[in-house]
């Protein structure tokens, strides 16, 4: 576990509200081994803090959040609520969902009243409380509207109101602004921060899951970067820049840069770490390279931009210019790095000779270069090619490969891995794939 800028908040506030001790998640396998999804994690949420959990898609941040709230059971370790273990009981928390998760058949006020009804609060009292909170989030006059009549931003305001009406000690937010357009997201972020800073909401701590680095930097007092496969705490930043923060200020830009550095630094690359296996008799697993979920199409675009910029570019600046967030840029970078078209250094991306050749080539030559790089650097594709070559009819069903992957990944992840591998293999003309029959056939040169 690498810690870039650790600073425990212990001296300021001694008792955490929620504390995870050795919290982990794994799935059992038929052969007695396990697939580790989340490595044992220690994490404490202290009062008065906004914590941002940052990570690329599919790294397990949502799962971790759901374990902290009690929605998803942990397979090891426990969550403590004011020092008491929570088993099956739900601590007083709320979640704001990315998809809003409003009940479309209930009006705005009925949506906000529903959690109060669940707590057995009489109608008049809950109506009063709901009105008060709707007023606070700026929804005065929309009480009797149905969610479908509202814009995305208004819907998420209802989501926030519903979360706050139960006066949660910790407010969890699962990518609350990523379904909104940029301007609306900015407005909502500002309003939420204002409510928090002015102590207008009863919440004692906030926990935001996000893949947007700038969002984390603007909002959070503490940023936890999650590494993947299995998920683990990769870095833990404490942010003490005073509010309101200017994202163009030198401090903010420096912080964003250093987060980028952590996310792309080769020393912290964890793709080649094999999933941990436990259990008696578990055979030692070969090294697995996890494929980033990209299509080869975007690769050329990225490399061409790099060639235009003289072969080296600052990733943060690039993401800003292209208005791409981490979610969409990072996997493409990972792909390029994996194929050795690119290397990263101090938050910069630098093109390699292979990458340069790829960017300059025509369509057919690009495929040839891609094929060579893929077979050399992606063990899975190499294995697939060898397996197909070994068969007399050069054909195997995708089930065969799925079974191989199932030993290393959860069922869902192995499906995604295979889908990505098939995309790459088709592009590289290593094999053909018939989606109807699910058969892979080696492409003869």
């Amino acid at each position: 576990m690498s810690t870039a800028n650790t600073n425990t908040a212990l001296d300021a506030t001694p008792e955490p509200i929620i504390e995870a001790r050795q919290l982990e998640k794994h799935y059992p396998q038929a052969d007695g081994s396990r697939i580790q999804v989340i490595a044992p994690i220690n994490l404490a949420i202290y009062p008065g803090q906004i914590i941002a959990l940052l990570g690329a898609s599919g790294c397990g941040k949502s799962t971790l959040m759901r374990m902290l709230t009690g929605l998803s059971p942990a397979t090891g370790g426990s969550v403590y609520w004011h020092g008491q273990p929570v088993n099956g009981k739900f601590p007083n928390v709320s979640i704001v969902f990315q998809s809003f998760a409003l009940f479309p058949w209930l009006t705005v006020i009925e949506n906000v009243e529903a959690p109060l009804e669940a707590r057995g609060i009489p109608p008049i009292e809950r109506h009063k409380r709901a009105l008060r909170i709707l007023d606070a989030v700026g929804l005065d006059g929309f009480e009797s509207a149905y969610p479908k009549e509202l814009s995305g931003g208004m819907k998420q305001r209802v989501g926030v109101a519903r979360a706050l009406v139960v006066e949660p000690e910790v407010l969890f937010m699962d990518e609350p602004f990523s379904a909104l357009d940029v301007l609306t997201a900015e407005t909502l972020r500002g309003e939420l921060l204002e409510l928090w800073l002015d102590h207008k909401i009863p919440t004692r701590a906030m926990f935001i899951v996000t893949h947007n680095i700038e969002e984390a930097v603007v909002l959070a007092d503490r940023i936890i970067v999650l590494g993947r496969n299995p998920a683990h705490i990769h870095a833990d930043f404490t942010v003490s820049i005073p509010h309101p923060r200017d994202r163009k200020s030198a401090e903010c830009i420096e912080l964003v840069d250093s987060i980028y550095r952590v996310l792309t630094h080769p020393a912290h690359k964890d793709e080649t770490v094999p999933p941990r296996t436990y259990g008696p008799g578990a055979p030692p697993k070969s090294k697995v390279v996890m494929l980033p979920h990209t299509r080869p199409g975007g690769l050329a675009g990225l490399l061409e931009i790099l060639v235009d910029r003289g072969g080296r570019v600052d990733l943060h600046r690039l993401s800003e210019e292209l208005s791409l967030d981490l979610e969409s840029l990072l996997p493409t970078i990972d792909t390029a790095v994996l194929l050795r078209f690119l290397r990263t250094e101090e938050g910069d991306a630098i093109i390699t000779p292979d990458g340069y050749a790829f960017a300059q080539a025509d369509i057919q030559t690009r495929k040839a270069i891609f094929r060579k790089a893929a077979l050399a650097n992606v063990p899975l594709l190499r294995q697939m090619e060898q397996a197909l070559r070994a068969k007399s009819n050069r054909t195997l069903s995708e089930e065969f490969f799925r079974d191989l992957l199932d030993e290393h990944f959860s069922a869902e992840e192995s499906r995604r891995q295979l889908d990505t591998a098939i995309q790459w293999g088709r592009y590289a003309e290593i094999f053909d794939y018939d989606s109807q029959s699910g058969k892979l056939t080696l492409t003869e040169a």
Partner: protein
Amino acid sequence: MDIVVFLFVFAAIFGLYAVGRAWLGPGRPGAQISQDPRDLPLYAFYSLVRMAVAYALSLVLAVAYGYFAASSRRAEMILIPLLDILQSIPILSFLPAIMLAMVALFPHSQFGIELGSILLIVTGQTWNIAFSFYSSLKTIPRDLREAAIIYRFSRWQRFAELDLPFSTIGLVWNSMVSVAGGWFSLMACEMFVLGNRDFRLPGLGSFLQTAASNGNTRAILWGVGGMIALIVLLDQLIWRPVIVWADKFKFEQVESSAAAHSTLFHVLGRASVVHRLYRRLIRPFFNWLAITLTQRAFRAAETFGARKPGRARTWIGFLLLAAILVGLGFAVFHAARELSDLHHKDYIELVRSAALTFLRVNSALLLSALWTVPAGVAIGFNPRLARFAQSVVQTAASVPATALFPIILLFLLRLRGGLEIAAMLLMLLGTQWYILFNVIAGATAIPTDLKEAAQVFRFGSWDRWRYLILPGIFPYLVTGMVTASGGAWNASIFAEYFHFQGRIVSTAGLGSTISGASDTGRFDLLLAATLIMATIVVLINRFLWRRLYRLASSRFKLET
């Protein structure tokens, strides 16, 4: 507005009284069914009450079944395949068991026969509603379910504010299909002979049936007219407003532009009596219910860790399971004994009739497809025609084919092989609408871009059909054919065997075997024929329709 609503309330009270008097009176097996058109309104009312009670029971049963199947993995494994089988059993096969049980339970009052008739309708209606509810529950988005958990919704609140609203649209559409099926089988459900015992109940179905048996053409026409009037009225007064109301439960984040419309719904919405009733009575009741239920759940949740599943409960579960297994074994044993009584000649006969019905059903399907596909595409490609045709087709489809059957027979029986044609015609009448509906919907859904592309590349009409139209409507066509196929098998029971003009007209087939066996009280034959029919239907579903469905949803789905 208020006055109209009050009048309705008075009428309802009077109706309740009439029904009570009729049902609680002494049993009158073999009661005379009037043929006087002046009795039609009362008869129609009796039938309506029967249907309403049956539907209410079906709904409750279906919701319970679906809820239970969706809530437990183990229950799901048994209940869902079972649903497939139950759905494929024709209602006449349930008749002897239900009727004899009910009459035995209430030997001295009409109530037993009424209840039997109602339960019979239920067995035809409840399964597809149950399946719809189950599959709705299974498709509730994860976020909504998590929201319900994190905000500590009680079981009741989760049911009332999440499960039920999310399933409402599916429930409404399937209810309409179910009730239409109920009208279809009404004639069989109101009048049946079991061996030497004769049960008949005053109602529209028995009126028509009696008229057909006596060959009373005037009464047949009156009966059919009454039935059509009742069904059109129900469509306007009940289903249309319900569909408009259900629109509120559509799970969408943006409002769609094309909303359903019903005049009655708006009238009711404006009547202040309705509002007052809702505010004063209905809402407070549900509030009270919710609070009582949630407070109990809340207290239970607070003492969560302490409560463990009691020993007694697991024991009761085991006992229940054992009882069910014993009962099942007993039933299988007896069924096997009944079946072994059958002569092997009977089996040869059964196989032959199964083959005949199989041919008949599939020819009917083919014929329906042959005319509905071109017609549906023509309608669907013309938006103005589509809107108009949609409502005409809807009304036409809601008239149960069995009611028209006596009229058809009047004309066709004079011809050679007339019953053969009539049987096919009845199946056609019962099934073609499903296909037509779906083809129109499919043709309307083909994107304009694709049509324009076909135009730009100057597709000939054959190529247009091959590359554009047939693939475009394929998923819809499959959906329509699945429903139609099930309907046609069920229709064979009414189509192949009929009491008409004082005699029985029948043609060889599995349907007529079932009707005949039920008529003559040959339970062994009835059981064997039912088993064969259920097996055929389930097999066709498994091996033909399900595969086509998968193909339709993987290859022919139009996605943007």
